[in-house]
C-alpha cells in the first residue's frame, strides 16, 4: 500500500492560491457579537466563510432543495453546532463544505477558505485540502473504516496522501501518537489490528485519529455519537474536545441531540427545511429561544435531570417535503403562532438581540421579543389524562408480569467440521423485576446488556432456561399446550423499534390491524368495528385504513404499530426502543400517546430504551441492566436522584443534559474501556473491571468484588434494590 501513495503525488494545495482575504459583511459582524458562551465572542479572522449556500438534488420526484441559504463563519478553536431534525439539510451542508456530495448535487453560493472559493472545484482540486485542511468524522463508525486494511494502514494513508515523502518511521511514530491521543490503549500493538477487532466506540476514536492526523483547520463531525451508547458517547465527546484542543481546529458539530450541543458547542445554528431559522451563542439559544420551532424543539425533549412533572409538548405535524416546500414560512403549518400571513412570504433571519448577535426568522419575531414569549406561552402544555385507577396504591394492584432470576445462554460454536460448543454467551444472566397493572417499568442498559433478549424470552412464552416468568399469574413453565399459549399471547403484545421495517410494506393498514384479530378468530364485523376504533385510539384518521405503510410518516407508522399491538386488548405491552428512530419533535407525540393509552386502558408497559431522559419521563420504575444482569431496580425518581449502583451513577452522569449551564458545571464519570464480552466467564461482579469505586476499596474488599457475584439486595437507606457489595450512599446526587 505504501508504495502506491508515493506514486500518486498530489497537485499543490489550492489554498496556496489565496491571500487570506476575509469577507467583512453584516453576517460576520453579527457573529462577532455572539458572546454568551463558554469562550466569549469570537476573536480574529474566521478560517472558513459560508455565504448563501444552496444545494439541490435532481430526484425522480422533482428538484429536492436540501439547503436554501445558509451563512456562517468558522473560527479556529470554536465549535459551531448545527441542530435540526432529519431532512433539515444539516448533513448536506456539512458534506458540501468538504466537497463530498453526490454528483447530482447542484451547489451554489460561496464557501471560502483562506480567501479561496471552494465551490465549483473539481474532485482532484478538493482532494488537495480534504484531510489536510478540512477533515470529517462520520456517523456510523462500524461502516466508516475499510474492513480489509489495518487501523495503522488507514491512519498512515491520511498522512501519506498529503505527505508522500514522509519517512516510514515518522509515519509509524505519528500513528502511534495519534492512537494514544484518542485514548486507545497499547497503540503500538493495535496499529496492526483490523477494524472488526474494535468496538464501535474504539472505531470512532480511530476515525477521530484519522481526522486529526494532519492537524486540519476544520473538523466536521456529523452526528459522531448518534450510533453509540451513552457512556461511549461521553467518551467520544471528550476525545473530540481533546482533539480540538490539540489541533486548534474549528469544529462543526452536527446533531439532532440538544444535549450533545449544550455541552460541546459555542454557537448554534438551528436548521429547518434547509434554512437556518435561528442562530445565537449557546446560552442565548437555550435561555431565550425565539423562533417557535426552536422553542418547540426544546420543549419536546424530555429532561433527564428534572423529575417529569409535566407533559412533553409535541410539535404537531411533520416537516415538509424538500421537493415541495410550501410557500411562506415552512414551519407555519406546524406553528401554533401561525397566522394566514405566515404562508405568504418566507421570513429572513432578523436580530432578536442586536447586541448579542442573536438572530431568528419569524414574521412575528417582534411580538415574541416584545412580549418575551417563552415556549410555554407558545406551546401550551397539554393536560395529562388522570387515570381513575391511579388512586389505588401500587401494592394493591395485581402483578401482571413477574420475572425472577431469568437466564438465557447462547452456545458458542467452534469452527471445524463438527461445530462443537466451545463456550456460552450469557446474554441474560439473572434478570429480576415485576410490573403491576397500569405501571411502566423501564429496562435500561447499553447495547449488549441483554434487554432485547429478555423481551424475546418473555415473548416466547416458553419455559425459560432457568428462573421463572409469570405472565398474568400464569407461570410459563406450566403452560402445557399451544391453545393456552395462544390465549396468553392475546394479552401480551410487542412494539418494535423501527416502524419502517416492522410493518409489511405490501399490506394495507386495515390488514395490518386485522391480522392479530383474525389470528384470534374474530368475525368480520367485529374486526371492521375494532379497526376503526383502533385508528381513532392512536389519533389517526380511520379513513386511511386502505393506505399502505409507505404513505405514512415515521411517527404515524409507529402509531400504527401501537394500534396493531393494542388490537387484541392486551394487558401487558412490551416496547422495544419504540421511539429511538423518531425525530425529537415526533417522539414527544408518541410518548404522550403512550401515556394516554396507559391511563385509558390500564395497560402495563415494559419499556426498553437506551435514552435515559425518555425513561425518566415515562417510567414509574426502572431496572438497570449490565451484561445480562439487573444491577439496580427501583422507583425511577429514586434511582435517578440517588443511584446506589456505581454503574447506574456512571450511566446517569454520561447523559448529556440539554442545558449548557448545567452541562458546563457537571463532572462526568467516564467509564474506562468498553463493556466486556458476555462470553467471558465472571466469577465475581460483572462490572468490576470498569468500576470507578473499586480502586478506592481496600485489598480485601476488592477481592470480594472479584470473587463473589453480587445479587439484588436492598438496605434501610432507601427502597431501591442493587447488585453491589459496596453500594453508594443515598446522598450521592447524580446530576
Amino acid at each position, binding site marked *: *500500500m505504501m508504495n*502506491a501513495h508515493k506514486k*500518486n503525488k*498530489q497537485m499543490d494545495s489550492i489554498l496556496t492560491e489565496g491571500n487570506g482575504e476575509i469577507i467583512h459583511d453584516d453576517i460576520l459582524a453579527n457573529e462577532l457579537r455572539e458572546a454568551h458562551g463558554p469562550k466569549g465572542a469570537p476573536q480574529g479572522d474566521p478560517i472558513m466563510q459560508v455565504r448563501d449556500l444552496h444545494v439541490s438534488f435532481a430526484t425522480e420526484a422533482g428538484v429536492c432543495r436540501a439547503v436554501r441559504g445558509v451563512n456562517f463563519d468558522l473560527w479556529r478553536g470554536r465549535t459551531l453546532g448545527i441542530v435540526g431534525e432529519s431532512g433539515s439539510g444539516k448533513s448536506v451542508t456539512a458534506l458540501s463544505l*468538504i466537497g*463530498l456530495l453526490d454528483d447530482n448535487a447542484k451547489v451554489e453560493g460561496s464557501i471560502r477558505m483562506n480567501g479561496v472559493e471552494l465551490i465549483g472545484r473539481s*474532485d*482532484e482540486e478538493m*482532494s*488537495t*485540502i*480534504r*484531510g*489536510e485542511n478540512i*477533515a*470529517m468524522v*462520520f456517523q*456510523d463508525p462500524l*461502516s*466508516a*473504516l*475499510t*474492513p*480489509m*486494511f*489495518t487501523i495503522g494502514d488507514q491512519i498512515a*494513508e*491520511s498522512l501519506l*496522501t*498529503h505527505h508522500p515523502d514522509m519517512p516510514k518511521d515518522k509515519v509509524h511514530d505519528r500513528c502511534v501518537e495519534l492512537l494514544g491521543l484518542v485514548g486507545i490503549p497499547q497503540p503500538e500493538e493495535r496499529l496492526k489490528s*483490523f477494524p*472488526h477487532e474494535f468496538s464501535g466506540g474504539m472505531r470512532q476514536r480511530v*476515525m477521530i485519529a*484519522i*481526522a486529526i*492526523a494532519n492537524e486540519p483547520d476544520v473538523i466536521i463531525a456529523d452526528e459522531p455519537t448518534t450510533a453509540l451508547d451513552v457512556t461511549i458517547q461521553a467518551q467520544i465527546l471528550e476525545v473530540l474536545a481533546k482533539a480540538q484542543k490539540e489541533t486548534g481546529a474549528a469544529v462543526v458539530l452536527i446533531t439532532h441531540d440538544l444535549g450533545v450541543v449544550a455541552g460541546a458547542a459555542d454557537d448554534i445554528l438551528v436548521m429547518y427545511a434547509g434554512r437556518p431559522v435561528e442562530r445565537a451563542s449557546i446560552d442565548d439559544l437555550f435561555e431565550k429561544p425565539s423562533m417557535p420551532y426552536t422553542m418547540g424543539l426544546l420543549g419536546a425533549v424530555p429532561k433527564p435531570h428534572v423529575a417529569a412533572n409535566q407533559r412533553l409538548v409535541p410539535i404537531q405535524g411533520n416537516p415538509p417535503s424538500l421537493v415541495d416546500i410550501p410557500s411562506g414560512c415552512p414551519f407555519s403549518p406546524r406553528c401554533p403562532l401561525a397566522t394566514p400571513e405566515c404562508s405568504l412570504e418566507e421570513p429572513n433571519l432578523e436580530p432578536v438581540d442586536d447586541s448579542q448577535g442573536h438572530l431568528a426568522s419569524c414574521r412575528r419575531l417582534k411580538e415574541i421579543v416584545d412580549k418575551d414569549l417563552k415556549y410555554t406561552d407558545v406551546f401550551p402544555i397539554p393536560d395529562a389524562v388522570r387515570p381513575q385507577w391511579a388512586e389505588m396504591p401500587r401494592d394493591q394492584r395485581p402483578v401482571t408480569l413477574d420475572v425472577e432470576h431469568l437466564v438465557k445462554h447462547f452456545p458458542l460454536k467452534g*469452527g471445524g*467440521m463438527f461445530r462443537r460448543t466451545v463456550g456460552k454467551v450469557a446474554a441474560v444472566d439473572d434478570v429480576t423485576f415485576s410490573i403491576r397493572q397500569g405501571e411502566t417499568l423501564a429496562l435500561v442498559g447499553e447495547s449488549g446488556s441483554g434487554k432485547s433478549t429478555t423481551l424475546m424470552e418473555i415473548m416466547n412464552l416458553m419455559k425459560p432456561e432457568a428462573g421463572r416468568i409469570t405472565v398474568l399469574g400464569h407461570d410459563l413453565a406450566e403452560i402445557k399446550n399451544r391453545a393456552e399459549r395462544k390465549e396468553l399471547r392475546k394479552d401480551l403484545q410487542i412494539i418494535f423499534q423501527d416502524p419502517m421495517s416492522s410493518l409489511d410494506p405490501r399490506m394495507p393498514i386495515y390488514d395490518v390491524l386485522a391480522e392479530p384479530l383474525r389470528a384470534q378468530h374474530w368475525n368480520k364485523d367485529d374486526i371492521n368495528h375494532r379497526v376503526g376504533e383502533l385508528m381513532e385510539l392512536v389519533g389517526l384518521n380511520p379513513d386511511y385504513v386502505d393506505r399502505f405503510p409507505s404513505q405514512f410518516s415515521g411517527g404515524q407508522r409507529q402509531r400504527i404499530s401501537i394500534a396493531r399491538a393494542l388490537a387484541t386488548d392486551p394487558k401487558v405491552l412490551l416496547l422495544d426502543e419504540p421511539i429511538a428512530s423518531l425525530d425529537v419533535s415526533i417522539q414527544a407525540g408518541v410518548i404522550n400517546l403512550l401515556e394516554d393509552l396507559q391511563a385509558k386502558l390500564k395497560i402495563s408497559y415494559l419499556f426498553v430504551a437506551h435514552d435515559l431522559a425518555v425513561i425518566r419521563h415515562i417510567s414509574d420504575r426502572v431496572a438497570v441492566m449490565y451484561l445480562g444482569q439487573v444491577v439496580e431496580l427501583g422507583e425511577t425518581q429514586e434511582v435517578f436522584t440517588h443511584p446506589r449502583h456505581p454503574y447506574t451513577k456512571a450511566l446517569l452522569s454520561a447523559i448529556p443534559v440539554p442545558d449548557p449551564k448545567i452541562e458546563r458545571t457537571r463532572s462526568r464519570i467516564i467509564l474506562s474501556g468498553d463493556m466486556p464480552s458476555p462470553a467471558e466467564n465472571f466469577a465475581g461482579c460483572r462490572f468490576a473491571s470498569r468500576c470507578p469505586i473499586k480502586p478506592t476499596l481496600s485489598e480485601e474488599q476488592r477481592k470480594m468484588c472479584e470473587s463473589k457475584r453480587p445479587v439484588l439486595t436492598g438496605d434501610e437507606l432507601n427502597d431501591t434494590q442493587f447488585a453491589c457489595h459496596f453500594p453508594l450512599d443515598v446522598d450521592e446526587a447524580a446530576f
Partner: protein
Amino acid sequence: MLKFIAKRAANYVVMLYVAISFTYFMASAFMTPRSNYESRTPRPPQASIERTLDLANINDHTSVFVRYWHWLTNIVTKWDWGLSPSLESVNKALAPRILASTELVTLSTVLSIVLGVALGIYTAQRQYHWQDRLFSTLATFFLVIPSAVLALMIVLIAITVNDAAGFRIFYVTGLSSYSGDNLLLRFGDFLQHIILPTISLTLLGMVSYHLTQRTYLLDEMHADYVRTARSKGLTRKQAIRRHALRASLIPTGVNVAFSIASVFTGAVITESIFAINGLGRYFITAINNNDINASVAIAAFGGACTLVGALLADIFSAWLDPRIKMS
C-alpha cells in the same frame, strides 16, 4: 495458512470421493450398456455379450458392489478408470480430450475474466454515462444470443474475410492441421485454429463477469468507507481503486473459481461447431453410448475442478479479507 489449506483439501478429498462413488452407483443404475449389444443386428451371441460386458466391468448381472470394488481398486492401484462398452480405455480417450479442452478454454477463460472484470470496473465508475449504457446494451445482446448462433456468425464472418483475403487466415474447424516439426509454424497454425473459438467463448464468458463485477463495485463504491477514504484526501478514483475494488473482487473470485468445471464441460456447442474433440462432446457421447466408466471419469474430473476452484476461492477470499480467519 498451510494447515488451513491442508485441512480444507482433506475435507474436499473426502467430499470428492463420496460424490464420485455416488455418481458411479447412479450411472450403473441408469445406464444399460447391455442394450448397446442386444439391439445390434445381427445380435451377437449371448456368451460374447456377457464376456465383453464382464471385461469392461459393466455387466449388470454382477453385483454392483463387486463391480464398484473392482473399479475402485483399479483406480487406486493402477489409476485405471476402466473401459468403455466397446472395450476402449477411458484413460486413453480422456487424456487427449482434456488436453484439447484445456487448449480451447484456457485462453478464452483468462480473457473473459480479465476483459469482463475490467469492463465491469470501467462501467461502474461511469454509471449512467454513455459508455456504461453502450457496454450494458452490448452485454445484454451477448447474454441473450444463443452460443450456436454467435459461433456460426463468427464462422461466416471469418469465411468472408478468408475469401476477401484470397487465402486462409482463419481455420474454422479443428485445433491443428500442420504436421511438420517447425515449432514456430506449429504455433502459428494453432493460433489460426484457436482464434475463432476463443473469440466466441470469450464474448459469451465475459458478459457475466462484466455485469456482476459492475454490480459488486457499485455496491462497494457507495460504502461509507469509500467516503472516509475520500475525506482523507484521496480522489474519487483513488478511493475506489484502493478501497472499494478489493472488496468487490471477492465475490467475482468465488464465481471464477466455481465456474472452472463448467468451463471444461460446458463448451459443447462451441466444440461441435468448430469440430473440436473436447470434453463437452465426449461427455455427451459417453452418456449416449451408455458408457458408465467414461461418464463417471468425466464427472470426477469436473468434481475435482470444482473443488480445486473452491480451494482457490477460499484462499483468494482469505487473502483479500482479513476477517476470514485462516485457522
